[in-house]
């Protein structure tokens, strides 16, 4: 056929098509005359036109799907790559397929990454090579190593990489039931690797748990720098395109990646924040499962995620408590800030480097305040007051040491012949301790006080060690000192002291006696504070059991064991169980002769447990009650009162009643000022937090 013929065919086709169907054949027969093939051709066209069912009508989409979609799997036919033999496919990622291979002569396992569909274009081959060369630059124990590079006969590039025998990050910590601290330490390892890449001017841009493997020894490996980008790189047009939304995993994509804007180190910080969220809450911050691309984009760029602490609660409630770590309220408060700062929608307001993120992770692990500023002022007070409160009760508990030492000396001195002398000496000793302890008459001014307490404690331990001839007293001393070390957060010292106490008491009174149970309970409480919940529960239940069997029904030791159990159950997230136990404990402390402080403490724990369980009304009512009790016991402006006020403010803040929350917070500020004094407030290190939140002006 030539062009003239084709014109002819088309003209006839269009003319015939305008006529109604029955008339078309007649018209054509007339127009074509003798030319039978012309007639046949035009008729064929009309036939196809009326059918309208060809590939051209269906559109290219379906065809494209069948040509390049997942229905077709390409697998390598050649099994031999240099000295390596392919064993099996490991997976697909980015532009490549990854295989497990074994080296013929040495027998070691490696991963081989081969470019898929290399035949498509040289540009594609080049892009693949560039990406792998990026990987070759990196030499860090946290990043999968690249060993070698080569090409097949047809030019297909392939690379030999470290084979990482491990599980994805999320699987690892879920399977091992890791505590929050353990999870954070794992994340920290990942951060170190990312930081290293940043130092080499590389942004990963596709951080996600499946790209982070954890080996059996607990070390991590970062994989798949598939869409990594060199910071500030100059040419290479292939890399100047924006990241295709499709090339990365939406769930971990930062808002700027979605919008196609410039990415930077903060983009990786964002991804680390999402990973942290998942690790804390047991789910992702946004539910993208039923969203279109546009919907997902909108969620990531505009929607605020629920706080990890709240999300964790919900996950614990729906999925059962066993697999989610728990922490104190103040700790969750910190974790919320840590996570949400990393995930801030505005890159400028995130941690500006992975290093800054790591610093705050370290602060958290050490129980120190974070550098990141939270948006609410509530958090600040909680942390501040709680740490100070430890010092306050430590000072108060020092009296217990003093009393203990006095007992010791009294015991010693009763052997002295002169009782009057003994009495005088006793009084002097107490006085000397007091004056040493409270220089200048200000019991809780600044870190120096902590040091004095610690000095005293260390001295106390020394004294106690020399008490070998008085094992009962020694055990008592160890237990008291251990408890104080615990309050100061010095868990290691507390640990050895409390274990010694248990051992001594066991040998003195037997393993199943209430005296021994006392020390076992103290050790259990320590384990609780150390977040070793399984052991804690075992010990506490053991103590409770002994006490219940061996003591009369209304013995305070039983109530004390129950309170400890209630606290532990709350700490490990078993809120309903905790509430049940605490509700049983409260009546025990309501009996005449009980210390009101014990009842108040029990109700305080009950209020917290209800708060975590989401029973805000109940929690609030309890807090109000405890508030009155504390005010009566300790006075209006005691830090323990402030602690309750913080709780009350917290609930209101969570419910969005900001002005009410602020009123509570101002009361807290008032107490803090009154208790610690304005001058101390100016110098104490912790109060720089207050300064930053702009409250210094109110001081």
């Amino acid at each position, binding site marked *: *056929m*030539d*062009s003239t*013929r*084709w014109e002819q*065919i088309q003209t006839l*086709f*269009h003319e015939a098509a305008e006529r109604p169907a029955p008339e078309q054949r007649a018209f054509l027969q007339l127009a074509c005359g003798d030319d039978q093939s012309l007639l046949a051709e035009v008729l*064929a*066209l009309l036939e*196809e*036109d009326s*059918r309208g*069912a*060809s*590939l*051209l*009508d269906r*559109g*290219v*989409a*379906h*065809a*494209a*799907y*069948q*040509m*390049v*979609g*997942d*229905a*077709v*799997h*390409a*697998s*390598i*036919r*050649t099994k031999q790559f240099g000295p390596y033999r392919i064993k099996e496919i490991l997976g697909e990622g980015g*532009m490549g397929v990854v295989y497990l291979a074994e080296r013929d002569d040495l027998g070691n396992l490696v991963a081989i990454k081969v470019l898929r*569909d290399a*035949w*498509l*274009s040289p*540009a*594609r081959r*080049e*892009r693949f090579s560039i990406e792998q060369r990026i990987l070759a630059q990196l030499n860090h124990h946290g990043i999968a190593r690249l060993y070698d590079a080569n090409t*097949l*006969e*047809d030019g*297909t590039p392939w690379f030999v990489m470290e084979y990482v025998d491990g599980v994805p990050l999320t699987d690892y910590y879920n399977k091992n039931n890791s505590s929050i601290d353990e999870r954070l330490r794992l994340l920290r390892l990942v951060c170190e690797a990312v930081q290293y890449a940043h130092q080499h001017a590389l942004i990963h841009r596709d951080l996600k748990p499946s790209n982070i493997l954890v080996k059996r020894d607990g070390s991590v490996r970062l994989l798949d720098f598939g869409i990594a980008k060199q910071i500030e790189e100059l040419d290479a*047009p*292939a890399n*100047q*395109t*924006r990241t*295709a939304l*499709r*090339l990365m995993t939406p769930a971990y994509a930062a808002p700027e990646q979605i919008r*196609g804007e410039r990415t930077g180190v903060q983009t990786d910080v964002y991804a680390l924040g999402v990973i942290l969220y998942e690790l804390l809450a047991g789910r992702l911050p946004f539910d993208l499962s039923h969203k279109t691309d546009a919907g997902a984009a909108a969620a990531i760029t505009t929607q605020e995620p629920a706080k990890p602490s709240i999300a964790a609660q919900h996950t614990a409630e729906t999925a059962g408590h066993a697999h989610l770590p728990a922490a104190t309220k103040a700790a969750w408060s910190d974790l919320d800030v840590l996570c949400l700062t990393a995930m801030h929608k505005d890159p400028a307001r995130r941690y500006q480097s992975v290093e800054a993120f790591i610093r705050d992770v370290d602060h958290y692990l050490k129980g120190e305040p974070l550098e990141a500023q939270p948006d609410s002022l509530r958090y600040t007070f909680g942390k501040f007051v709680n740490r100070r409160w430890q010092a306050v009760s430590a000072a108060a508990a020092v009296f217990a040491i003093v009393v203990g030492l006095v007992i010791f000396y009294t015991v010693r001195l009763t052997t002295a012949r002169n009782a009057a002398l003994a009495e005088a000496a006793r009084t002097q000793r107490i006085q000397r301790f007091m004056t040493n302890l409270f220089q200048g008459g200000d019991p809780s001014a600044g870190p120096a006080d902590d040091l004095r307490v610690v000095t005293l404690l260390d001295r106390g331990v020394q004294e106690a060690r020399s008490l070998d001839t008085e094992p009962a007293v020694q055990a008592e001393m160890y237990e008291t000192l251990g408890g104080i070390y615990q309050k100061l957060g010095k868990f290691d010292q507390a640990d050895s002291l409390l274990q010694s106490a248990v051992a001594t008491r066991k040998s003195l009174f037997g393993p199943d006696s209430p005296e021994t149970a006392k020390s076992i309970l103290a050790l259990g409480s320590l384990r609780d504070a150390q977040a070793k919940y399984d052991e804690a529960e075992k010990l506490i239940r053991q103590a409770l059991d002994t006490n219940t069997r061996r003591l009369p029904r209304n013995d305070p030791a039983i109530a004390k064991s129950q309170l400890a159990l209630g606290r532990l159950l709350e700490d490990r997230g078993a809120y309903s169980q905790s509430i049940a136990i605490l509700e049983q404990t409260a009546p025990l402390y309501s009996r005449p002769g009980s210390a009101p402080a014990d009842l108040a403490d029990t109700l305080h724990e009950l209020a917290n447990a209800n708060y975590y369980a989401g029973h805000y009304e109940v929690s609030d009512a309890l807090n109000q009650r405890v508030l009155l009790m504390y005010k009566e016991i300790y006075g209006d402006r005691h830090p323990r009162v402030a602690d309750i006020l913080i709780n009350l403010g917290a609930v209101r803040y969570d419910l969005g009643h900001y002005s009410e929350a602020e009123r509570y917070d101002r009361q807290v500020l008032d107490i803090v000022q009154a208790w610690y004094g304005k001058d101390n407030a100016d110098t104490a290190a912790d109060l720089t937090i207050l300064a930053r939140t702009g409250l210094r002006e109110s001081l």
Partner: protein
Amino acid sequence: MEGTPEERQEIDYLFSVTYEELRRLASTVRRGDPSATLSPTVLVNEAWLKLAASPRFAATSRLHFKRIAARAMRQLLIEAARRRHPRKRGGDDNWSVTFDDSVQEAVTTGDELLALDTALAELARINPRQALMVESRFFGGLDTLETSELLGVSEATILRDWRAAKAWLAHELRQSSTRGQAGEAGEKR
């Protein structure tokens, strides 16, 4: 492959970028799911958005870009069809291809694409403008207005030409498949 060296380079580069797009979009299409869309228009528009900012394409008009993208798409799909067509595999490539149940359908589609390619080449011989139009519309997803702008004719002409070309090509495809069934190697290279 025809075209200037610059065009060939541009297409080559386009492959690299848009192939990933195509793969990803293809993988989101669930067979039989009417709401799933894999539209070349979307694809090409996305590719344009991605590349528009890059200096490499600074001098390219959107329309010209789309035309090149259409050609790239055609080349890509034809090449993929050739690779996957069991009878057509020649040479020494390292990859074997395994299918799932959609074997027959994929083979048919592959055959059709190859037949279309041949027929289009034939059409280009006798009416180059029309062939370009088909390529742009079918592979590049250009609409009537864009195509009319690209070719410098009225929309009515575009619609007429499209209708006729479509019918003829469909006929060619049908004949090709009949020939194939009769056991002949119908395609010309």
